[in-house]
């Protein structure tokens, strides 16, 4: 299992697709779970719509390549169907308005369902390589917190009180809680609260199943067979978030297996930016000044990027560092993915010979 994490817009989806393709090249049965692919890449992977099951991509490789675009809601529906003790109870939940809001409105749900899908494909799909993209979240490790957050949410004590018959409820709930409920009802209307109560009632008795499932998912994430790949770009904001990710993963005791830095600027000259800048000044009255300034600008950029990347790489020591250059166009077909793969792997499918931290 490979989990690609990083902030939005750094090329996570593309990197995930490259890894799955390489898996298929090496003769494995590989699947990539994407979250929000750019349209042309989705088309290239044969992903027209959100789906709950992977589709196979035919191609000239010894293994198999499968892909799916995560459908948060239907993944959640499948879980409800699995853990509801009766079809009637499942139906009651699936039709509840509050439930229908969960997959789009409760933060962390998409993250959890991505992990749930990873678990399901690993357990039941017969895949030898599962690569999962993660949602472009600002809340770094939402996908690790997500299972716990969701079960905590389903366990909400306040709403358990609300579900009790009136007299018992009044006894159990303190004055403060009663006031709180009144305020909520007054604020958003009692029908909104009724939807929520109906949901928690319908969900009664299923929390344990959900909690156990969440624990197994979490367990899989910390399994040595699961690798976390940190994907970033050398832009200041992306790097800042990557440092945060790296720290969070370390806290959770999860090692980063590799660091992929996309969109690195090339370095054109061994001379330093300052040196080149002063040569530009020497040429101030000629047209060469512009060309020297240009070279100095890109050299400065390359120097700064390299310094930042080296520092980040040291934080995830001893994970290998892969630098992918700024490419002339976005990757949106299998050919482009193969091309990109050359930066990540050498001809034998081994990681490309690049500097390690």
């Amino acid at each position, binding site marked *: 299992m490979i989990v690609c994490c990083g*902030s*939005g*817009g*750094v090329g996570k989806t593309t990197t995930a697709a490259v890894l799955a393709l390489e898996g298929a090249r090496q003769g494995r049965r590989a699947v990539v779970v994407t979250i929000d692919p*750019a*349209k042309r890449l989705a088309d290239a992977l044969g992903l027209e719509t959100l789906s709950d099951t992977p589709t196979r991509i035919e191609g000239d490789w010894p293994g198999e390549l499968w892909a799916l675009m995560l459908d948060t809601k239907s993944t959640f529906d499948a879980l409800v169907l699995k853990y509801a003790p009766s079809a009637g109870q499942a139906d009651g939940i699936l039709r509840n308005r*509050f439930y229908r*809001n*969960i997959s*789009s*409105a*409760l*933060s962390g749900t998409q993250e959890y369902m991505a992990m749930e899908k990873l678990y399901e494909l690993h357990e039941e799909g017969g895949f030898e390589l599962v690569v999962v993209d993660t949602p*472009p979240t*600002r809340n770094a490790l939402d996908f690790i917190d997500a299972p716990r957050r969701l079960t905590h*949410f389903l366990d*909400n*004590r*306040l*709403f358990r009180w609300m579900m009790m018959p009136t007299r018992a409820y009044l006894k159990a709930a303190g004055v*403060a809680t009663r*006031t*709180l409920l009144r*305020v*909520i009802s*007054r*604020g*958003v*209307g009692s029908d*909104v609260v009724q*939807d*929520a109560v109906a949901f928690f009632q319908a969900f009664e008795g299923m929390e344990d199943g959900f909690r156990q499932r969440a624990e197994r998912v979490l367990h899989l994430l910390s399994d040595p067979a699961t690798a976390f790949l940190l994907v970033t*770009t050398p*832009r*200041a*904001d992306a790097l*800042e978030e990557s440092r945060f990710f790296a720290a969070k993963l370390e806290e959770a005791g999860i090692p980063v297996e590799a660091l992929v830095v996309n969109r690195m600027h*090339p370095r*054109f*000259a*061994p*001379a330093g930016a300052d040196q080149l800048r002063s*040569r530009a000044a020497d040429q101030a009255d*000629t*047209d*060469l*000044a*512009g*060309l*020297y*300034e*240009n*070279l100095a600008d*890109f*050299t400065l*950029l390359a120097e*700064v990027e390299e310094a930042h990347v080296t520092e980040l790489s040291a934080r995830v020591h001893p994970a290998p560092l892969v630098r992918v250059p700024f490419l*002339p*166009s*976005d990757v949106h077909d299998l050919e482009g993915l193969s091309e990109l793969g050359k930066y990540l792997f050498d001809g034998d499918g081994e990681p490309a010979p690049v500097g390690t931290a």
Partner: protein
Amino acid sequence: MDPARFCSQSRLVIVAGKGGVGKTTVSAALAMMAAQAGLDTLIVEVEGKTGLGTAFGQGELSYDEVQLADRVRARTITPDQALLEYLDEHGMRRLSKRLTNSGVLDVVATAAPGIKDILVLGKVKQLERAGDADLIVLDAPAAGHAVTFLTSARGLLDAVRVGPVRAQAEDVQELLTDAARTQVLLVTLPEETPVNEAAETAARLRERVGVHLGPIVVNGLYPPVSGLEAAADLVGRAGVPADDAQPLLDAAAFRRSRHDLQQEQLARLAESLDLPQLRLPYLFSPELGPAQIETLAAALADAVTNVEMAS
């Protein structure tokens, strides 16, 4: 259009775009331009850690306003902060801790999606009504969250039929759809995916929110370099040290090819989106500080002055 007039078209400007396109930088440049045109400006951040405060040497922003520059103030408004203040103002301070700590807000936010966004936009509306600043620049959450954020009022009007939340949603919807009070500035980069997403976001905002879209800001354009086209001639002719020749040519070729790609994307953007473009230069500077924001504010003022606008 004159920058002062541009900044006075609406009291609220919402800056929106995909993550990584430079929304926060553009918000800062816009505020700086407005301040220089004589307007008291307030920047509102809705996400923590945007780096705006640090760019001005102030540390991260908080709910309390700070002065970033002459006539430029900044603060954050997050749902939790807005809720606490609301409860406080309505004499329910003791409840506020329970609401935010117990996860009840999560439950309520799921029951009525968009309620967190309404808490934030409701507070912005309050500031706008109070005339707290001549211009409020709202640095919106990253798209597609921007669409969700701005459609929250409409969504809540469907879900919540009574009470103060509904009243709040009605006020916010009124604010957003009044072109004399609010306009949205989309920000994008001259690259394939950001261009596609900008066009999609624009279409959705028009259709689902009915908000007035101002010009689109295209960030990160390579400024022209003299001698770039004639690089081969120049390097061959003059007494360029042998070691420098190839790097100069390579860097020039790289710049030309990136420039051409950017021009293609600008053309694609013009084709797919009928909004005037305000183009900002790519800054090679490794850090973002007051000097860089000044540069961008000046570039933005130039772009605004030269752009043709319908209104």
